[in-house]
């Protein structure tokens, strides 16, 4: 039985949440950048998450022979970041004729980052990260107790 696989699952969760954090922070950091008219404006991105081996588990459970023992843990889904895809949010246009990057009508384009949504995302990311750390801790405690089994106290 792959005891340490459980820790790997939590670690995969932590990696995914950290990537989401990086993406959200990058969007936030670039929210105030501008580009000259016709130039390349920063495009907000988002992390697309998927679960590995989830499909395999479900199909085997539905019609094939059921998995047993150690292969069960190997079949447990792990999250991963499939891609960092650009969001299709339109740029935010602000009237500021004195700005060097203003277009002919006096509008400056900013990346379509919604600070409120991004901050809420950050909160939820932080909660998920904490939950994964907690799960990691509990698993580690159980493993330590198992290793201590039978020792004289």
């Amino acid at each position, binding site marked *: 039985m792959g005891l340490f696989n*459980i820790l790997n699952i*939590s670690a995969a*969760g932590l990696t995914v949440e950290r990537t989401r954090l990086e993406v959200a922070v990058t969007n936030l950091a670039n929210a105030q950048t501008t580009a000259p008219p016709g130039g390349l404006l920063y495009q907000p991105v988002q992390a697309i998450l998927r679960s590995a081996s989830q499909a395999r588990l479900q199909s085997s459970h539905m019609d094939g022979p059921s998995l047993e*023992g150690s292969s069960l*843990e190997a079949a*447990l*889904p*792990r*999250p991963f970041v499939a891609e960092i895809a650009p969001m299709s949010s339109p740029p935010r246009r602000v009237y500021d004729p004195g700005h060097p990057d203003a277009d002919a009508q006096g509008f400056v384009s900013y990346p379509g980052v919604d600070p409120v949504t991004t901050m809420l995302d950050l909160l939820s990311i932080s909660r998920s990260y904490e939950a994964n750390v907690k*799960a990691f801790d509990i698993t580690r405690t159980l493993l330590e107790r198992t290793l201590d089994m039978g020792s004289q106290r």
Partner: protein
Amino acid sequence: MMFSVEPVWELLSRHLDACMLRQAVYSSNIANASVPGYQPLEVDFESQLRSASALLQAAPAEAGDLLQTIQPQIVRAPVASVELDQQLALMSQNALHYQQLLRAFERSIGLLRLAVLEGKES
């Protein structure tokens, strides 16, 4: 009647395995909480234990063989999405259960040690 510790150990170790698998399943649920469309999973063990114990009362002789048939299964949890607090609560409960089983294991080892040492403490 001869005292045999083996069925007890077999049952305990199977139950420990099931608890560790459950720990893995809850870890996986928490890790996948942010994946859209993820279906939470659960481990089914207690219902098999119950049906095995019902069978055992009908035919007490086959206890050892019956234990071999108990296998924990991964099933879909009856909820649509992962609730982090709920999963963590279940996980803490499972962790306590696991430590309880470990304690029982240690006690049965202690019992055997007592017998080997002919009742003397050390």
